[in-house]
């Protein structure tokens, strides 16, 4: 067994792990300082004793209430969910997966093809609609996304849908006119259904580095983001910036994307996620231990 000391070297290694997971250098240094204090206070000198403290601390930082990764679903009315985010993060794919999930729960789902800009975006959503077996409301490529949303709300209402999932075109947060367009899309939905959208989900690509913070800030400002979907966690990137986002902006992660298939969407679990942050290290330690035996 590896009796590792909790020393400077230990904390340096921890710092590297967290930085390489994209947690962000400021948050990492704050965390390390707190952990050092904690170790001193509790008189912890063995690595195996501090490991649970670290995990607990990170998990607490990410999830403050048990049920905060639950979606805000309406009991006796239609739930409208708006998906926003920068280009190529996985908005349309997540909508496809979520449509499938709701269908399996026996809900009636409608999709709104609000990306009228990107080549093939409408067709992509239609393929997902077919896969999940749900209707897609669309207009021609190039038409006004706010008009599509208006149509979609009316159509979903008249179909008696339980859930309306609204796709939007990817946009970089520094494009002011595109962010204004998004605000307008949201406004149109709210005008038709006063408390809608019931969720505004910001889709973040786990591969993204520190820019995700700027994405979270700007999208929150224009659309009041209620939760995050962290996609592409099936790769080697960890998306650790969600820790900093939670810390600074208090936006919870609600779902994670784990692949390109229909079933590759999971509700977020903080402890599982934190375990994943250290998975490689744990794996290495286990291998080293096995080798010694």
């Amino acid at each position, binding site marked *: 067994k590896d009796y590792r000391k909790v020393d400077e070297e230990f904390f340096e290694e921890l710092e590297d792990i967290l*930085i390489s997971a994209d947690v962000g250098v400021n948050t990492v240094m704050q965390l390390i300082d707190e952990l050092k204090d904690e170790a001193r206070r509790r008189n912890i000198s063995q690595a195996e004793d501090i490991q649970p403290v670290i995990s607990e601390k990170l998990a607490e930082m990410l999830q403050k209430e048990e049920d905060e990764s639950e979606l805000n679903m309406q009991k006796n009315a239609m739930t409208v969910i708006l998906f926003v985010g920068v280009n190529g993060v996985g908005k349309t794919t997540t909508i496809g997966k979520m449509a499938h999930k709701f269908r399996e729960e026996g809900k009636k789902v409608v999709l709104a093809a609000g990306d009228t800009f990107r*080549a093939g975006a409408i067709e992509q959503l239609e393929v997902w609609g077919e896969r999940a077996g749900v209707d897609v409301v669309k207009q021609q490529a190039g038409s006004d996304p706010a008009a599509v949303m208006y149509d979609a709300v009316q159509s979903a209402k008249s179909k008696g849908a339980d859930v309306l999932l609204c796709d939007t075109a990817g946009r970089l947060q520094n494009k002011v006119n595109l962010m204004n367009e998004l605000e307008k899309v949201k406004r149109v939905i709210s005008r038709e259904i006063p408390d809608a959208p019931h969720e505004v989900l910001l889709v973040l690509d786990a591969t993204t580095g*520190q820019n995700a913070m700027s994405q979270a800030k700007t999208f929150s400002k224009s659309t009041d983001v209620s939760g995050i979907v962290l996609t592409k966690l099936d790769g080697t990137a960890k998306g650790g910036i969600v820790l900093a986002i939670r810390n600074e902006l208090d936006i919870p992660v609600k779902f994670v994307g784990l692949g390109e298939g229909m079933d590759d969407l999971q509700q977020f679990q903080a402890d599982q996620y934190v375990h994943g942050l250290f998975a490689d290290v744990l794996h290495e330690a286990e291998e080293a231990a096995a080798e010694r035996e």
Partner: protein
Amino acid sequence: MAFEGLAERLQGTLNKIRGKGKVSEADVKVMMREVRLALLEADVNFKVVKDFIARVKERAVGQEVLESLTPGQQVVKVVNEELTALMGGEQSKIATAQKPPTVVMMVGLQGAGKTTTTGKLANHLRKKHNRNPLMVAADIYRPAAIKQLETLGKQLNMPVFSMGDQVSPVEIARNAIAKAKEDHHDYVLIDTAGRLHIDEELMSELDDVKELAKPDEILLVIDAMTGQDAVNVAESFNERLGITGAVLTKLDGDTRGGAALSVRAVTGTPIKFAGMGEKTDALEPFHPERMASRILGM
């Protein structure tokens, strides 16, 4: 802004130093810590940063800095020079085969911008180099990927070769190259499906396409917002395929784009183009020195 620039960051350190008559090694150490932070905040990989700082430190404790009247500025200058060198000083152009057609393969993670860049590159080759490229739809997996490239082709009024999504990418590439020869296209741009660098099955599919198509250029398309993982991605694609260059997309955003440095450092291949928007004309040759300043926020 999410990140203050390095110059700004260094200001605090500089102010402390200014009162002193001379700059010591300890002062340089403090400054190097600031540089390290700036690079990490710009998403440069932490291992790349470590090597970089070691190299810069060596120069910074030398006479050229310590005996200068403006040591702070000197450090910034050294950092900038080293960074530009690491970025790969010269601008690098796209390959042209001895015997046409020149075959270009676009590869990378999901959503990086391969398909869009394929359209942009076709447009660039036609407009700037007077070429006649054929775009090839070899992504048989992503929903409507073929339709996406065809739509771009229609917007550009340029041909797209496709065989639907029931034929293997190798077969598509074989037929596309034959077709290009027949129709006298001088470039063949193969758009492949996004894939994870750890997906053995899909990576070996790229091996097969490479084997058949014998590309003159394999471009890794990488999102400028990519974080620390950029090195893993670049390293894996490079070890597997031997990439010849990279395209950095979405640089029209407000990211610092430290991934550029990581990609360059681990593959040693140049970044050839920068994606500057979603439209088909938003592709620019990549300028290493501008990128260095951007990473530092100057």
